[in-house]
């Protein structure tokens, strides 16, 4: 039989992580209803939930043209994130491995990349629009610009960090350069590549939303900006939370894939199970 204090501790442990979020939401609700600010400027969480429910399920039509369209808006954004991210991943890993492996490739390509790298991805918006018009393409281009460099740098870093003795062991078994790259350098670089991918997916979502605000007429970012014009701050907040959730979800997927692919690291790092 559990004693009363230890029961309290058990209950506390259960709810520990939820306490601050619940207090924040309750405080926000109270503040919005208190009338200190005009209700339109900071909609109460309950109002956001109502707007969001209609956006997702088409419950009462309060979001008008967005009613029931959430899944399509999210899919449109996710498609852009995925396309740009995939492109960045393929090119970033390939070019990064070439730079990390070959001094010649490094000398030829790296200076150009290092000059382009500090250019903020959003500053490509004007060129992206004149090159690709208003549709998916400029958004995908921006996502690519934002996620390419983290992947590239992490791949270079991963290849350079590859233990030379592993390569000697590979050479000893008679492996050709291509085989050594596939079977030793690439797997050795994977932990670093995955940390780059996680940074990249974050900036991918940031840039999709930015692109959708200015260069596209669909997606969660577009809904956010459009609702701002119509003074629907409840939908603005619902969009913000949606983006946060989608970003969290995509990071979670990468994390799970990494945990599976890098399962050999368990026991050799501080990472705990399921990390």
């Amino acid at each position, binding site marked *: 039989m559990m004693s009363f204090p230890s029961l309290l501790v058990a209950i506390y442990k259960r709810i520990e992580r939820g306490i601050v979020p619940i207090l924040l939401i309750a405080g926000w609700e109270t503040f919005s209803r208190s009338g200190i600010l005009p209700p339109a400027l900071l909609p109460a969480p309950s109002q956001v939930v109502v707007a969001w429910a209609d956006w997702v399920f088409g419950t009462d039509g309060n979001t008008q043209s967005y009613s029931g369209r959430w899944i399509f808006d999210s899919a449109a954004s996710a498609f852009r994130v995925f396309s740009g991210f995939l492109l960045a991943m393929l090119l970033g890993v390939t070019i990064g491995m070439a730079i990390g492996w070959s001094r010649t490739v490094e000398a030829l390509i790296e200076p150009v990349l290092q000059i382009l790298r500090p250019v903020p991805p959003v500053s490509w918006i004007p060129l992206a629009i004149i090159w690709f018009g208003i549709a998916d393409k400029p958004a995908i281009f921006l996502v690519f610009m934002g996620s390419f460099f983290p992947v590239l740098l992490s791949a270079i870093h991963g290849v350079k960090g590859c*233990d030379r*003795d*592993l390569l*000697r*062991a*590979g*050479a*000893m*078994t*008679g*492996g*050709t350069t291509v*085989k050594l790259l596939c*079977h*030793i350098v690439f*797997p*050795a670089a*994977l932990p670093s590549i995955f940390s780059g991918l996680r940074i990249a997916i974050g900036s991918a979502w940031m840039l999709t939303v930015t692109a959708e605000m200015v260069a596209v007429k669909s997606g969660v970012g577009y809904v956010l900006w459009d609702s701002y014009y119509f003074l629907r701050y409840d939908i603005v907040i619902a969009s913000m939370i949606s983006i946060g959730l989608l970003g969290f979800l995509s990071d979670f997927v990468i994390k799970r894939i990494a945990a599976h692919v*890098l*399962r*050999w*690291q*368990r*026991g*050799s790092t501080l990472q705990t199970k399921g990390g």
Partner: protein
Amino acid sequence: MALISIDHVSRIFGDSNRKTGIVALDDVSIDVGRGEFICLLGPSGCGKSTLLNLIAGFDEPSQGTVRVGGQVIRRPGADRGVVFQQPTLMPWLPVWENVAFYLKMQGIGKAIRREKAQRFIEMVGLQGFENHFPSELSGGMNQRVGIARALLMNPEVILMDEPFGALDEQTKMDMHGELIRIWRESQSTIVFVTHGIDESLALGTHVAVMSARPGRIRELIPIDLDRPRDPTSTAFNDYKRHILSLLRPEPVKDWA
């Protein structure tokens, strides 16, 4: 004819900062016959690892030639299996994949790799750990995986660079026993680098005592002791005394 023949080999490492060269090996000649177990013994800096790297093909001599089976060595190859100082396993591959890494490089299918690995996993006594990752095993077990990987290639020569240096005394002694058994079973030729006098006398059919700066071979001593070798026996200690006298610092005039 000797299996490994090292003919007047020198290796000078350039030091671009000081515009001088460091003589790691100075005119070294030595022959190793098939089936021999030769220990390269010497203090750090005597060039014993350099010599091993030359045989492995990781490095090229500045002068002279290194031949294995009559072929001049220019690059690493599967005819020379190397067991490194650190286990140097692919940490992302389970034990059996590491053991069969050579077959993977040859593009051989998974089923055959798995089957061929098993014999060598058993030879080094790791049955039951086939699917463990290196990070889940102890240092001694990982070193056995490294040995199994080298054996699977069925190499002419096995080159070992202080493979048991990181192990405790007890594990080291066990590994010595295992290694001698494996060497007899596989009838291979082993070149074994060590700085331990006892280790070299426990293992080798020959001990090449080296001296440092510049790296030279002081003496090649054939070891005529019964196995298993008793490190407390008189004969063992006579060899040890002789080796110690060789390893004592040479008179100062030789340093110039």
